[in-house]
């Protein structure tokens, strides 16, 4: 579904990621793990066209996305939930969700699906996004992404700023989505949660992929255990 090859990208200060490649097959849940500053966000921003890569290709079902603007990529079926969530703070939860379906009108069945997954959003539908709690905002960000009925859902550290209980709940929701057949790509620092959720994964270290494998393989890898699972 998504195939990224040889991406090098960064900001004026220099490259943040170098020669990064990975792929996501339809129906898979793939994780990219790495510590703070490893380049996970830069990588996702490049995929979404928010940052132009200096070299490399990003292919969605065979079509190269490099050079295509972000709003077009979004309309091709990639929904991205950034770590900062990027909600519209002075709009109600309902208006945020409606914009998720842009340029179309929100589809009732999809909206009901989102409310099913996050009943809390249904209770808060008239509340302004900016006044919601961190957990609710995360639900809203995921809900807004789902409103476009994406082919691929990409989440950048969905547990940022969430208490452990809420973080686990967020992954339970992602689990439900995966069971419904949604393809999910997630970047995570909280590695145990991501390992339990995904089929496969990549380890991003200092801007390069250092390891790749099934989640079971990575969970058994001594380096991963030491660096990310706190096991010596």
């Amino acid at each position: 579904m998504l195939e990224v090859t040889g991406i090098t990208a960064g900001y004026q200060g220099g490259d943040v990621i170098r020669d990064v490649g990975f792929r996501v097959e339809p129906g898979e849940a793939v994780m990219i793990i790495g510590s703070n500053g490893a380049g996970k966000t830069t990588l996702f921003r490049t995929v979404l066209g928010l940052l132009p890569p200096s070299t490399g290709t990003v292919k969605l079902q065979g079509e190269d996305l490099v050079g295509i603007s972000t709003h077009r990529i979004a309309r091709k079926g990639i929904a991205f939930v950034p770590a900062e969530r990027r909600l519209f703070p002075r709009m109600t939860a309902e208006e945020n969700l409606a914009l998720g379906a842009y340029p179309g009108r929100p589809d009732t069945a999809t909206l009901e699906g989102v409310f099913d997954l996050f009943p809390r959003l249904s209770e808060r539908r008239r509340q302004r996004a900016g006044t919601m709690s961190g957990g609710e905002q995360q639900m809203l960000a995921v809900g807004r992404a789902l409103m476009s009925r994406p082919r691929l859902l990409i989440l950048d550290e969905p547990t940022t700023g969430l208490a452990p209980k809420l973080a686990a709940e967020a992954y339970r929701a992602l689990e439900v989505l995966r069971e419904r057949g949604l393809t999910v790509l997630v970047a995570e620092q909280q590695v145990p949660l991501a390992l339990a959720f995904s089929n496969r994964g990549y380890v991003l270290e200092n801007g390069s992929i250092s390891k790749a494998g099934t989640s079971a393989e990575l969970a058994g890898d001594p380096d991963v255990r030491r660096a990310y699972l706190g096991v010596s």
Partner: protein
Amino acid sequence: MIANLLDGIVLGLQFGLLAAGLTLVYGLGGVLNLAYGQMAVISATTIVLAMDAGMPVFPAIALGLAAGGLLGLIFDLTILRPVYQRQGEARVLLSLLLTLGLAFVIDGYLSWKYPTKALTLRIGGGPIEIIGVRMVRGAVVASIITVVVLGVLLFFFRKTTLGRAVRSVIEDEEGARLVGVDPRRIMRLILVMTGVLAALVAVTRSLVVPVSTTAGFELTVSAMIVTVVGGLGSVAGAVLAGIVLGIISTVAASTVGTVLSLVILLVAAAVTILIRPSGLLGVRE
């Protein structure tokens, strides 16, 4: 006193309509359009010339509104192009310089070519009595038109998909792009819309006072003051600030005179900014 209050509301509604155009463009992309008053004046002059050439009043007004919209589109496609390529403060500054320069050019040309032209639309019939006060018919009609236009604007922003997309860009441009909104297209739409708004300001104002070819800067400055007090990017704030400042302005004008009333207006604006830097209903940065 009540007469002053009503006159203030009439003026305030026009202030609100005027500021709405400026505040939207700034809120959307950090673009300051200092040729905004001149957009209104060009529309007014178009209507005058069309009527001089024998065109009936309503088609002439329609032509003026179209001219305003077209002007907005031309702005978007020409002088604002280099502005869009810059970010942040550089963008604000460049837009300010380019549109100010353009405003001087338009002002100079119009006052050289048509020094004595002014748009005055008269509505027949005597004054209308409102809660015991006799109001000039033109002022009442102008206010009704303004209220309707503001109502349509608020409906557009609150209830339509496109209007919500405009707000999404004002609130979080990156978030807007991620849901599939094209900020450039939205900006173009809003520039056309504010061009039409500027033309509507010219039309409604000319029902009360003549709109001369040199009125551009006065309109822009009024719009700026109202925008800053109302809060950048907020149409509701523009309307609220417009009405407050309109009332202050007319009450002051009738008690201490026109010159001092302008001073009082500026002081009121300065005090608001000191107390609430983001304006009455502005988005906090």
